């Protein structure tokens, strides 16, 4: 291996490394600016006004709440509905739980997206942008709450999920579901303030609440946080997701990428040089001189 070859190789390797600097640190937000919604399930009466408001705001399915009997089954959000309310029968009576995208503080879907189509906007809402999306559904694979929903029956499918009404937030309005809630079960505001309110409610009514705010620590913290009178696993929440932010699961791998990208070629070229010299022995020196002579001729 001569010097020219070595330079060529390092150029190729370096060029690749520059285009693939994958291990960029997660964007850090100022926690004060991070907004969210507090859901107090003890206040929810299951009127599903939020479902109607959401459907009307986004031009999607508007349920006929009086007649469709939807509370009899446990529903999931789908590509036509960003949010649903489910009824759970517990030891403390019926509990109604609103379900939608949790807007994680460090969102797995946004980390997974190869084109930044799924993106966390300023302030926390995670929003999907169709002009970027390639439809790989890696966001769906990565989301611990299974929230992005894919339009499997469209030739030009969209990924549908709650956007925390990002467009309304930009105009200074509250999310449609919060504005529609008649019982203040939903409260929109800075996440830190929501947490304080939630803690205050637990402290002032210690017997009425579980002493756990779902979403305070789960998956590193979510924009939507929940209060409940019964343990969260009884009202449809996964309690096995852990406190670690999901992007951290791939962080080590991505940090290793640049090291491998530079380290392995160095190792391979070194190995190759060793293998060459051990095979040809003293001849290799001859060929080196021969190469230099050639260069001189030119």
């Amino acid at each position, binding site marked *: 291996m001569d010097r020219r070859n070595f330079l060529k190789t390092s150029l190729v390797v370096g060029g690749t490394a520059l285009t693939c600097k994958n291990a960029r640190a997660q964007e850090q937000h100022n926690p004060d600016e991070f907004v969210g919604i507090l859901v107090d399930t003890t206040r929810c009466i299951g009127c599903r006004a939020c479902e109607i408001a959401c459907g009307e705001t986004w031009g999607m399915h508007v349920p006929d709440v009086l007649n469709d009997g939807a509370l009899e089954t446990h529903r999931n959000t789908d590509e036509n509905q960003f949010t649903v309310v489910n009824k759970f029968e517990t030891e403390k009576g019926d509990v109604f739980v609103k379900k939608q995208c949790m807007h994680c503080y460090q969102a797995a879907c946004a980390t997974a997206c190869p084109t930044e189509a799924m993106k966390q906007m300023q302030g926390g809402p995670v929003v999907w942008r169709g002009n970027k999306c390639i439809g790989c559904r890696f966001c769906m694979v990565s989301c611990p709450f299974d929230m992005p929903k*894919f339009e499997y029956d469209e030739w030009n499918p969209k990924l549908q999920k709650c956007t925390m009404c990002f467009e309304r937030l930009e105009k200074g309005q509250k999310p449609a579901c919060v504005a529609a809630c008649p019982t203040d079960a939903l409260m929109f505001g800075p996440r830190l303030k929501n947490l304080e309110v939630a803690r205050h409610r637990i402290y002032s009514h210690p017997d009425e609440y579980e002493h756990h705010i779902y979403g305070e620590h789960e998956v590193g913290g979510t924009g939507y946080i929940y209060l409940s009178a019964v343990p969260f696993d009884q009202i449809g929440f996964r309690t096995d997701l852990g406190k670690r932010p999901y992007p951290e699961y791939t962080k080590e791998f991505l940090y290793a990428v640049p090291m491998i990208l530079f380290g392995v070629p160095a190792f391979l070229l070194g190995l190759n040089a060793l*293998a060459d010299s051990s095979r040809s022995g003293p001849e290799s020196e001859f060929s080196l001189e021969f190469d230099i002579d050639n260069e001189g001729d030119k």
Partner: protein
Amino acid sequence: MNNNVAINASFGNLFRFFIQELKPRGPWLTPFNIISIPVILVGLGILVYRFIHGLGSVTNLSQETPWGLWMGFDVVTGVALAGGAYVITFVVYVVGLDKYHGIVRATVLNGLLAYCFYGGALLIDLGRPWNAPNPYIGNSFGFSSVLFLICWHFLLYMVCEFVEFSPVIAEWLHLEKAKRFLKKLTLATVVLGITLSILHQSGLGALFLMAKPKIHPLWWSEFIPILFFVSSIYAGLSMIIFEGTVSHKVFSHLIPEKHHHHFDDIVFGLAKGAAITMFVYYFFKALLFIHDKQWDLIADGWGLWYLLEVIGFVLVPALMFAFGFKHRSLRIIKIAAVMALIGIILNRLNVSVIAFNWYSVAHYVPTWQEIVVTFMVIFSELWVFRWFVTRLPVFDSGH
């Protein structure tokens, strides 16, 4: 004027040469053609339907199971099976073991085509494939995404493999000067290709790191990337043994006599390599199993399924490779290769499809359309492979 005529004439010749080479050779009604042609035609029909009516019209994918057979088999498994190219180029060009030179061309061609077709299968699984250039052209780089890394590596690796293979094309076109130039690029592309392979083979495993709560704990581990990388080594070696054996039967008229005996010798070497990497892989698996204290997980059906994969299709073929190498038994080695390949397919499908959402009541089962399209991808790759080996000097290298 004369010059122009000459250039026109040579272009005409080149054009006629290409047309000539595109014509089929040999008999038409072979069993392979009779099976593969209808499958490919039906598969194309399904794809047309899929692009009009959406993915849901031909697949059983759902909101809970966003990746099915196309992603799990064509992409995740297919790329593992194409690992032979980077292993063999490492052995031949980096370490300099000339013994394996005879199989480099066929293996690199196989790798190149596998990436074109199986990486290409990613496109038919994308919901919005017309946006596929987005990760490349720079208007939206998802630097933090493992899939972004894989997109780039697939593309760059295909370029590497094409450059590695290009001397064969130059030889076919009798372009001696170009061939000499292209050969000089080989070491650089080999080194880059190996690096990219290490990263995207492990990267395919890293795709599932964030799916931790959805994958059965026997298959999810923080070390999936390393497991995927190590297993891709023996997957590639087993694939070379399997594919070489089939090629030597099907294309025996194209392969010089001396290579037939030489190939047996190569198989023994590959078997030794496969045995060692499989033992390493098995050791990793056992270590993770014991370290994570998963004894109580193997009592149910999932545990038996796991044991079948890890013992039946990793430990057993590893022992068979070692036995076959020691006792010079090609038969045992070839059976071991097939078993190792089944083990790889099981492992990749378990991580990506079977043990994904294992707790779900309505578990994903592929539709017949998904299976037909999968076979369409495999068959069309074999068609192109056959076209290449019957026309280009793939088996009978110039030296």
